[in-house]
């Protein structure tokens, strides 16, 4: 009996050990259109709304527009090619870098100096990057064209927006775009279902390939359409903005006194559902990059 138990345990361990290693996807994902155009913008009206978990009444003075989806790999590749051509960014030691004028330093506990100089925008040698670089120009990896741009630092996200005359949203602007005027916890309402958004163990299509942590989904994926039998729920915010919960964290513009950290919003494919609530914050140094961090931009109303 004892021998059988030991043998069984060894066999179980062996079988588990021989399971295919799940890391980055072994093959590119199929190109998948969602019907949501990443080039479009949504109008967010100024005015009062409820900020944060405890619903503090807050006012935004003027209307603004926000990208309907997160910035995609295709968009960022196009930007990099333009920015390289104009000299806004340059490539140094497998990194795309660009100038940042620095932060005011207050000498607070754990605060680090962010000095003027060239800072990392994206690393070129990390397998998480969904862009190819042939030495002269960038292209998105096949299948990832309309996935959110990841592995981008706060500097890289800010530079993208400013290159086109836009900017990163403040945390307040981001939250109003996500929840609208009422106090809802998720962009679409009060409850979250697995097919509302891409989050940890949400059983989306990518999880079948890479496991519970999943991979990014194409931007605007959760719009009520069915993909290969996988039915999504229409999960736009009250202003028609997609992916404000899940898929990737989104960098916000704010620089706070006494801290070098930059904040991110929205939760990601690697987080449990409660991290997708609109008031949940994440933060990291401005030079942080990861496969679950992206961004979108805002701009002044064009008409």
């Amino acid at each position: 009996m004892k021998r059988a138990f030991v043998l069984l345990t060894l066999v179980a361990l062996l079988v588990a050990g021989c399971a295919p290693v799940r890391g980055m996807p072994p093959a590119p994902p199929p190109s998948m259109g969602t019907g949501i155009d990443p080039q479009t913008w949504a109008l967010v009206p100024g005015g009062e709304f409820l900020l944060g978990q405890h619903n503090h009444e807050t006012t935004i003075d003027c209307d603004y527009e926000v990208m309907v989806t997160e910035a995609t790999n295709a968009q960022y590749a196009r930007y990099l090619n333009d920015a390289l051509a104009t000299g806004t960014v340059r490539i140094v030691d497998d990194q795309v870098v660009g100038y940042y004028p620095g932060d005011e330093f207050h000498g607070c506990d754990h605060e680090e100096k962010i000095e003027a100089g060239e800072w990392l925008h994206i690393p070129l040698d990390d397998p998480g990057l969904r862009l190819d670089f042939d030495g002269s120009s960038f292209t998105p990896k096949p299948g990832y064209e309309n996935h959110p741009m990841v592995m981008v630092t706060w500097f890289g996200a800010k530079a993208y927006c400013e290159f086109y005359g836009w900017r990163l949203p403040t945390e307040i602007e981001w939250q109003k775009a996500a929840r609208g005027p009422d106090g809802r916890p998720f962009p679409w309402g009060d409850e979250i279902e697995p097919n509302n958004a891409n989050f940890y163990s949400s059983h989306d299509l990518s999880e079948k390939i890479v496991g519970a942590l999943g991979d990014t989904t194409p931007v605007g994926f959760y719009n009520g359409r069915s993909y290969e039998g996988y039915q999504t729920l229409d999960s736009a915010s009250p202003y028609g903005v997609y992916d404000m919960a899940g898929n990737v964290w989104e960098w916000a513009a704010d620089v706070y006194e006494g801290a070098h950290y930059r904040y991110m919003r929205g939760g990601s494919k690697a987080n449990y559902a409660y991290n997708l609530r609109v008031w949940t914050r994440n933060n990291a140094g401005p030079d942080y990059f990861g496969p679950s961090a992206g961004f979108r931009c805002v701009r002044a109303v064009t008409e």
Partner: protein
Amino acid sequence: MQAISKRFNYLFRSTKGLALVAIALISLVAAIWGTLSGPLAEWGIKDIMVRVLGMDLVEAEREGRIIMLYHTIAMAVVAIEVYFITDLVPMKDHERATINATITAGYLIAMFFGLWYAYFGHERVFHGIFLFGQSLVFFAGVLLAAALWPWKKEYRVKDPDYAHAGGVDLERLAFFMVAVATLGSSLFGAVTGSYWGSGHETFLAEDVIREPHKTALQLAILGHLHIMLTLIGMDITLIIGRWFDFKGLLHKIAMPLMIVGCIVITLAVWALVPYEPYAHIFIYVGAVPSMLAALMLVIFGWDKLIREGLAEHGITKASFWQKLKALVYDPLRFGSLWQMVFMNFTVSGVGIFMAVTLEETMRVMPAREERITLTGHWHILSAIIATIILFYFADRVGLKGRVRRWFGWLVIVSSDLAFGAATVFSLKRLFVSESAQQPLVNWTVLLTDVGLATVLVALASFMLWRLFDLFRKEGRWAQELAAGELASSEGTTSALEREVAR
């Protein structure tokens, strides 16, 4: 009727029965509320549980619910430790009975009404009753501190082998100091809680770690939760010391260290609000003697296990392997001390490493990852304390022979597997990049889940055994009751025996 009355006496008037009820309730709460997160939530069990029980889960109230849940479990754990203390430390019968009755009523009220308020609608009256229950627990603590007063003549040390100063029993003084520190520290949290809704907003400590400017109320809460868990840890160390009849030179060094550590660390935590930058230094200073005291208990206890094990087999000149065999022969006694050692690998060591290399290792991660490390840190510490309580309780209820060894080793191996894997998971960014972490995540999560599930199965089996036993007319419970297990008489016997011993 007599059958019910007998069982009531066992469950609510004997130390073993009282501890059994509290452990059973904690297990039940863990079994039900454990489905609301982690793998069981992923498998859809959460949705079923919410539907079946009619829970009302509002997203914005998640943090508040969790805080209520922590408090209800903590009250029961504190009650268990108090039962053990009133049983182990000499005191008068009426003191013992009053303390046990008060804390039992307190934690039961806090648990039922706290969970009812938090998870099944928000009837404000229930919140009030929850606070009343917590107040009873606090009042029981005041009674305990009074009963433990170490300067009473009848409790002076007679045996010079035990730590003493001017005849005062330093171990009793240590129990007293921890009780007083716990009372003050719970007030520290209660005062802050009284601002709830009028300037104080619910938050989880791990969510404000990187805020450059924390409010006084936030600092107070951070201090409260850290010191309460620390004091629970100190108490279980003292209880295990009693179990091993800790004495001799190491005892004489350890007890003053424990007392000094308790005082310094508690005052330092209370000072967190006005003097945050300096308080941390004193917290580290206070932690060192407390941990040294625990180390001395481990050295004493392991030496004792080896000596007793060898003597039992009549071995006078033992080889290394014979000593090792004697050391690990009884997993309950060995395990209770081993878990204290293992804690250094998964909690203290990691905590010190994190503190020392904060800027280079932790603060380069996103906050959500540092948060995972922090929550893992204190979940593991809580769980380690729980396993030590279980080992002591399993010994008290007379787990013997093969069952004792299977239960003990199952809990040691599987809990350490889970804690070790969870530690690796929480520190994963030190070994792998975010892009390449999936295999490590898969393995560590699997091992953690397997380890925890095994511990829970062992605990459930243990609880079911005791539950079925209650349905037997002449079950183990009846033997324990007949053997004079009523808390009053039992306590007197134990106290007298110990007084004679001392």
